[in-house]
């Protein structure tokens, strides 16, 4: 197991380096005049040139790339070209927001999909059909429409929950929960649908298995069989799907953050990408891929933990 973990971790780090390198080259390939953007409209062309020199933009791409790779590998993500704030600080401020809503959505969709997926698997007929159809539909509705409707109806019109903003957990747990509820729900919408369908499918597969019939032959109640045995055996593929959903949620967060005016990784990435603030974009990419690697690792571990055969090895 330890060997496996180390191998996965190394592969993950390699992945981070490759993705970041690809992004670096993409960013530097662009023709936009970043230095001009940074020094602002009132600066003279000389100031813009000076800025470009300061950022090293006048040096050849190859040399810049290796410099960047070196400092990045040493753990230094650099400073934003635009406001000189260290990238790590920006990310550190944005991560709690994004992770709060992503994990909120993940937990929400895990809970709801377990309930809906198992009920749909067990109850053939209209209930199953309704769940299936709504899941397919929910999966196909663009997430920001859900977010927008939630913001307009629940927050603005009904005033039940805040329409914008994020309250850090350490400032107030209740306010934190209130501030992430709507974004999480909006984000969870599509993920829940997909996971529900997946769970339903894998539970149907498990229900076909011999041991389920044997369990029934022992007079165990359906509820017990479904929620203990079937769910437990259908969980590993659902965990895999959930970990894939995570990558999707990272993307969804970009849009949901905009709707709810949250300054998370997603909106940081959007504004940095548009400005051409390369250090910030690269920082975001590195951190996101790292998170994805870690989440996949956790999913692998959970998979192993749920599967006694793997666990025993």
């Amino acid at each position, binding site marked *: 197991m330890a060997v496996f973990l180390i191998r996965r971790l190394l592969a993950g780090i390699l992945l981070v380096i490759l993705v970041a390198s690809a992004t670096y080259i993409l960013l530097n390939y662009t023709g*936009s005049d970043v230095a*001009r953007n940074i*020094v602002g409209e009132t600066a003279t062309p000389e*100031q813009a040139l000076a800025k470009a020199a300061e950022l090293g933009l006048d040096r050849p791409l190859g040399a810049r790339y290796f410099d960047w790779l070196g400092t990045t590998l040493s753990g230094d993500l650099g400073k934003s070209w635009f406001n000189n704030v260290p990238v790590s600080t920006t990310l550190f*401020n944005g991560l709690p927001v994004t992770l709060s809503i992503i994990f909120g959505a993940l937990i929400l969709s895990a809970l709801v999909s377990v309930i809906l997926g198992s009920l749909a698997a067990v109850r053939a007929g209209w209930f199953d059909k309704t769940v299936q159809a709504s899941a397919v539909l929910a999966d196909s509705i663009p997430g920001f429409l859900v977010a927008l409707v939630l*913001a307009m109806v629940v927050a603005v019109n009904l005033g039940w929950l805040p329409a914008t903003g994020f309250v850090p957990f350490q400032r107030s747990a209740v306010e934190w929960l209130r501030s992430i509820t709507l974004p999480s729900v909006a984000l969870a919408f599509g993920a829940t649908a997909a996971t529900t369908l997946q769970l339903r499918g894998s539970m149907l597969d498990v229900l076909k298995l011999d041991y389920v019939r044997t369990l029934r032959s022992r007079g165990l109640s359906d509820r017990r069989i479904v929620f203990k045995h079937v769910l437990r055996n259908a969980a590993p593929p659902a965990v895999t799907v959930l970990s894939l959903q995570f990558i999707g949620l990272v993307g969804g967060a970009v849009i949901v953050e905009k709707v709810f005016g949250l300054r998370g990784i997603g909106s940081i990435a959007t504004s940095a990408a548009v400005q051409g603030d390369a250090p910030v974009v690269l920082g975001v990419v590195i951190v996101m891929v790292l998170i994805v690697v870690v989440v996949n690792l956790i999913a692998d571990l959970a998979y192993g933990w749920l599967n006694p055969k793997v666990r025993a090895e």
Partner: protein
Amino acid sequence: MKRKLILAGAVSLALAMSACGGSGGAASGGAKAGGTLNLAVSQSLKSWDLAEASMGNAEQYYEPVFDALLHMDAKGAPTANLATSWDYDASLTTLTLKLRTDVKFSDGTPLDAEAVKANLLHTKAGKGEAAALIKAISDVQVTNPSTVVVKLSTPTPSLLRSLANVPGMIASPKSLTSPQVPVGSGPYTLDAATTTAGTEYGFVANPNYWEKNSYPFEKVDIKTMSDPTARTNALLSGQLDGAGISPDRVDAAKAGGLKVDTVTPGVVEGLYIWDKKGAIVPALADVRVRQALNYAFDSASIVKIAKKGLGTPTTQHFTSDSEAFVPELDQTYKYDPAKAKALLAEAGYANGFDVVMPDISSLFPEMQAAMVEQLGNVGVRVKLDKIPFDQFMPSILAGKYAMSYFKTGGADPWIAIQLIVSKQATWNPFHYEDQHVTDLLSRISTSTGSAQVALYKELNTYLVQQAWDAPWDVVKDVYASSKNVQVTMHPFYQTPPLFNFKPASQ
């Protein structure tokens, strides 16, 4: 642009503040005396370093912590603040300031002439928008701890108003350069516990502030909210006490029980003709062509429909707050597409001409649509060039486009000139120079009083005749506030300054 150099201005028109009437909709949140004032700003905070500071609505970030040397009254006349008196010499290049002696920064350092000198020299050397306003400062001399002398390389009529805003803000000399936490002598200090850099800045009252009565709130919370819909939503759901909104949200804001005020920060929008030399589009070198472009626009309809009435049609760069304003000039180019075509034909462009412009539909869709349509009506064929919207201004500065939609300006005529007219003006990317204009400018800078005003008007008239640009209207910005606060607009600030916020009277 919207956030460009707003301050300055001349005759001021104190905007009628809508008194806190209306039916008592009990909004949530509590901006009462001793409570928290919740505001949102669309721009993000670039830096706490005043040398890097932006202006426009970003001014609000600096106002709680930093106090400025001067204040302005509603007419734009300087009033005492950190400086108790100010005197120019006859040449208008030496300004002597007397300072209060009882002020300390929140880190305990006394605010004295040395601190002011360090600040002015630090800020002017920077690259921010605030720095650009005081570039003419050539030196600062300390006479005694309460007296400084500011030397100017050229007379700068807008200087006093600049010193009443971010360029005149004074930070503790110990944290001048790239501070992580701002240290000033202002009415509030930054509260780390309620601050998340880039998102939200919390401020608590500075117990040692010398003029507490002007700032009745115990706390101020400023959030960065770039998305206009998010801002509107936050206002409507009671999370904010004040924020700027876009013109098409006015009805929704009013229906939601908010107060809506407008402010005219001296910004003029319209078709800016960059290439008056005719380097890219030769037609533009012909004054008849530029005049034709002025006749082509139905400014009244643009204001009425695209701006939802929030603007004043105009043909000049100087607004009614400005000494250079000549009301009659607005009659010069009445909407007349036939006349426009005739002028074009006269100039040899009977079939119109082609021009490439940056595609700004992601920023100003209505403006672009109106512009393309009305230019098309007189035979000017616009080809739109797709660019990322952050490339809009840099590409104009780089001289890539012969003309485009734009908005800029300032209520102070000198600032407007430095932005648009002079050879080195920021928004004169082709560095077009007209000798008559240059002569007028040098005479203006060395004159004062009514003589100066007359010269300003002469310049204005000449610019309109020359069809320097094709302005459509003077922009009105919209500021919405909750019923919990009473806000007074100030014509020299795009967003109302902090001292103009008071709790609603009970």
